[in-house]
């Protein structure tokens, strides 16, 4: 599999999902349990991605400049600072720590 294959398959899958919502009669996902699982799936995947992106280095768990950067990011989101600013500050915190250690 090349990077292009991955991109094409994943794009086709997400686009097909979008179309299915508009074409398939509402039913299954309108029910309470599937709707709840679909909702929580997004939360679980994003939280897992945060963990891996913050602590993972290949198959190792590493605590480095990314951890304080994420803590700063969480504090800024709590203060309702806009997304782009937070992402930029998080990068700056990690880059700063790496530059001075």
């Amino acid at each position, binding site marked *: 599999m090349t990077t292009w294959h991955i991109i094409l398959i994943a794009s086709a899958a997400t686009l097909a999902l*979008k179309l299915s919502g508009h074409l398939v009669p509402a039913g299954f996902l309108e029910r309470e349990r599937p709707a709840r699982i679909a909702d929580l*799936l997004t939360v679980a995947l*994003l939280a897992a991605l945060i963990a891996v992106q913050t602590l993972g280095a290949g198959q190792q768990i590493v605590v480095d400049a990314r951890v304080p950067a994420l803590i700063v990011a969480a504090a800024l989101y709590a203060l309702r600072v806009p997304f782009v600013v937070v992402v930029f500050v998080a990068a700056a915190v990690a880059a700063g720590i790496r530059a001075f250690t």
Partner: protein
Amino acid sequence: MAEESESLAAPGPDLSGPAAAAAAADDVDARRSAIRDGFAVGIATAVYGISFGALAVAAGLDIWQTCFLSLVMFTGGSQFALVGVLASGGVAAGGSAIATAAMLGIRNVVYGMRMKPVVEAPRADGRRASIWRTVAAAWLTIDESTAVALAQSTDRAAKVGFWVTGTVIFIGWNLTTFLGALIGDALGDTSAWGLDAAAAAAFLGLLWPRLKRVQAGAVAVAAAIVATITTPVLMPGLPVLVAALVAVVVGWFDLFSRRPTA
């Protein structure tokens, strides 16, 4: 939820006389406010395409692959996830990357079902909406266009809000993605610039608005723990998929479902 979409789908009452003039003025106001909401949310959202573009290039994609994702996939969560998994596991983690992106796209199915009666109501002459309109609506079905549409007070304003938000984000997101990819390409050593931390902060920004309920918070914490402890023992990419099981278990049995007391 079903009631909500039905009321949005129902055609407005057929008014005539003086009441009609007042209603028409209200309707114009409602549509103006939908346009304002659409631009405000759209522009704010489109700006962070810059971070996607830079992160995608940092993950090893070229500029065209990065732009292709924003044009065709066009759903931020899945795009960030795909490049995030590829950044940690490379092409070998391709299967996990596709699965993660697709699972994050499942919520768009729910949005599509909710938006269908709003944006594809039969035309005035009773004919069905054209297939091209349906495809365009599906393409633009994302968190923000759905949220703006659902926040409007009338059916027509909801429709306007959906199309304005979706279109503004589509144009803006693709331009900023290209710009971000150029910046990422110019940066070189992305870890020295803290782009790995920026990716984590980006995921946190996507997660943050979803943490209003205790149940969502519990799922987030548990999923993060599962992903962390399985990282040393599973292939890159798989820990995220295993952590998704937390959502299935908690969602199935409806655990932790009380509302926050605060």
